[in-house]
């Protein structure tokens, strides 16, 4: 290591200051949330803080969209944006808010479950800050966030995170991961409070089925799969059959009992709801991806993943067509429809009838853009 003269050091310091100032707008812009459109089926819109008032005014508060039907039935909760860097779950929730109508039962949608995760990106991942979906009226931009709560909102991380309920230990940064924080704590750190609010929402609103939408890398073993709490396995099996009939290849796994903090485990244990998580696959989540930008988030094409697939290193097939966002969102929407229909099969009193939600084939055929409202 060598020292540098004072004048050159001062120049470097000034350069660093300029770079920091020049980049500031890019970071602060992420604090303005995407504008979502209330669709015709939305009957009420409220904030998560109405469940847990301590969240009011914090970066963890988020919009909750309520779509109530004319006839009685079950209640379906759909969570998108648990992880801000998994756009298919977020966009599927947005499509539900903008297009779904509920004929029977009730649908509650939280598109940005961890709103703080949408205000930053994970350092060294080089993710885009936003990506565009081409609608007939032009591109509509969405935020590409991070897996965990913004460290500006919750800091410092402990070196080791010990889950409050199970005592299980995880790497410290996982304390900011909403899907490791359930059932949450009312007096915990921000992420634990968000988790607590979601769990209480399930209890208070008597949710019949809670569905958490995710994406994972193509090398991850639990991918293109439904993970269900043991009480929800019959329901999930019915939904999986429906999905297979619709042409959606999907696996089914029971939620491991040894893994604490996860939605499909803790919601099922702590509430009366059927708890289910769905995973699609996306190369921008993975470690083998090449150039990383907004185009990759949308196209889902990557030549390194193609090569890895030829060597049988992946959990899903990966061809030149990749895994485009339309396919990934279509899988989640088809999943929501299949679960809603299957609830009625198990218990007619809990039936949920949805209309206006595009089916799997329709999303694939038309693409995602024509199904979304234009940028406003």
């Amino acid at each position, binding site marked *: 290591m060598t020292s*540098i003269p004072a004048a050159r050091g001062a120049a470097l310091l000034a350069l660093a200051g300029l770079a920091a100032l020049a980049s500031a707008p890019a970071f602060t812009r992420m604090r303005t949330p995407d504008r979502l459109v209330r669709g015709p089926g939305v009957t009420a819109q409220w904030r998560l803080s109405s469940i847990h008032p301590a969240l009011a005014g914090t970066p963890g508060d988020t919009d909750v969209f309520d779509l109530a039907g004319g006839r009685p039935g079950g209640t379906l909760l759909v969570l998108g944006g648990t992880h801000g860097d998994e756009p298919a779950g977020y966009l599927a929730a947005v499509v539900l808010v903008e297009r779904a109508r509920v004929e029977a039962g009730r649908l509650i949608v939280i598109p940005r479950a961890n709103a703080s995760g949408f205000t930053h990106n994970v350092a*060294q991942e080089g993710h885009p800050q936003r990506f565009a979906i081409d609608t007939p009226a032009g591109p509509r931009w969405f935020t590409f966030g991070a897996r965990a709560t913004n460290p500006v909102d919750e800091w410092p991380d402990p*070196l080791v995170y010990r889950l409050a309920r199970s005592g299980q230990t995880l790497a410290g940064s996982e304390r900011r991961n909403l899907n490791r924080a359930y059932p949450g704590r009312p007096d915990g750190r921000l992420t634990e409070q968000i988790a607590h609010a979601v769990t209480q929402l399930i209890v208070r609103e008597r949710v019949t089925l809670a569905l958490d939408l995710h994406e994972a890398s193509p090398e*991850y073993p*639990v991918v293109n799969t439904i993970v269900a709490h043991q009480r929800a396995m019959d329901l999930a099996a019915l939904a999986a059959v429906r999905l297979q009939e619709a042409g959606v290849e999907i696996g089914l796994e029971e939620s491991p009992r040894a893994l604490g903090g996860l939605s499909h485990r803790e919601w099922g244990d702590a509430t009366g709801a059927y708890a289910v998580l769905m995973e699609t696959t996306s190369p921008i989540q993975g470690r083998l991806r*090449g*150039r990383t930008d907004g185009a990759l988030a949308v196209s889902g094409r990557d030549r390194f993943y193609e090569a890895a697939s030829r060597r049988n*290193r992946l959990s899903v097939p990966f061809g030149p067509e990749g895994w485009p966002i339309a396919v990934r969102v279509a899988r989640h929407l088809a999943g929501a429809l299949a679960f809603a229909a299957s609830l009625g099969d198990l218990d007619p009193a809990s039936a949920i009838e949805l209309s206006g939600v595009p089916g799997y084939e329709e999303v694939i055929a038309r693409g995602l853009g024509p199904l979304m409202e234009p940028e406003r």
Partner: protein
Amino acid sequence: MTAGGLPAIAPAGWPEPATLAVMLGVFAALAVWRRWPIGVSLLAGAWAGAAVNGDLLPHRHLIEGAFSYLDPILVIVTAMIFMRALADGGALACIVGAVERRLGGRPALLLPMLMVIVMFPGMVTGSSTASVLATGTMVGPVLVGLGLCAERAAAIIAMGGVLGMIAPPINIPAMIIGSGIDLPYVGFAAPLALASFPAALLIVYWLGWPLLRQRAGRAAMAGLAGAGATAASPFSLWRALAAPLAAAALMIAPRAWPSAVPDYGLPLAFLISAAVAVVVSPRFGVVRSLVAATEDVLPVAGILTGVGAFIQVMTVTGGRGWLVALMLAAPAWALVGAAAVSVPAFGAVSAFGSASVLGVPFLLSMLGRDEVVTAAALSSLAGLGDLMLPAAIAATLAARALGISDRRRVLRRCVLPAAAIALVAAAMLAWSPQIGRWLR
């Protein structure tokens, strides 16, 4: 990258490795040829990588990447302040003198004991940095005072830090690798102990061999940096130990009683302990010590800042993915060798980063064997990353603790011990099913 509106000039066929070559070339040219500081050279390499991809103003990525290691930098700065307070206040000399008087004549007993002391902070925090910084200035002078050369003493501290990070109960790379496949952090104690404790004993005797052979420790005491230690000290030993004990308590308590004691992080633990050292010591120039401690860590902080920006641009431009894909392209029989080389090498930029970026894919490619033993072995390889250039954080900080200006002199002493750890890990990877059965 699109900013600047310039066309990318990286070749169309192989843009990722070509970009990586440009980045490494610029870094090496500036660091080696122009003798620029390593951190600044890394930043320049990162900028060059973005520029050949058409982004002349990649400030968002440079800033975002540069903040990757903010937490480790805070740990290092505050730990250095703690160390300075111990040394400048005189507590350190008192402790060193006491240890030398009681155990200096029995190096066969003293060496393993000192190794455990060095490893302990890493074992409870999962951080080699914490180990080296918390114990380096205490254990290093003891070893030098007994007659060991400074390079060997620093190597023992650096290796102890890395082994403490690997050893149970807390191994963060293992947690990161396990979480990549939803493997709970359960059942890791035995394989991690196997990967660390036998190697620790072997390494401390190997590096401390001159002491075992000559038994000349006491005679060499005259040259001890803290020479005043053997003379009348202004301290009682317990008073001198107040600050180190406070540091140990602040590190252990949140882990031992997580529901009762909040964990506010290592920086606060080190600052409180430094304050304790100031209170129990005779008056000394606290401001001068603070400035000196900050100056000591600036080069290391610069390297970590540069490394963060470098990795960020490497990821954006696809170089990181190309490297990972290259490693995983190895045939099944060569996977163990590929892991033994690439996981520590990538750990050069961050042991935790290597665990996530390479450790998880390697574990996935070895599924169906014993996943716990495999993850433990991979975490051990990732831990070795703290000895790899350009950051070589464990060796760099150990060299600083011993006042060695050229860290390569320490790194040379670490080569064989690190190879021994890598061999143990490779054997665990190769025979993970058998080792798993044996351990249970």
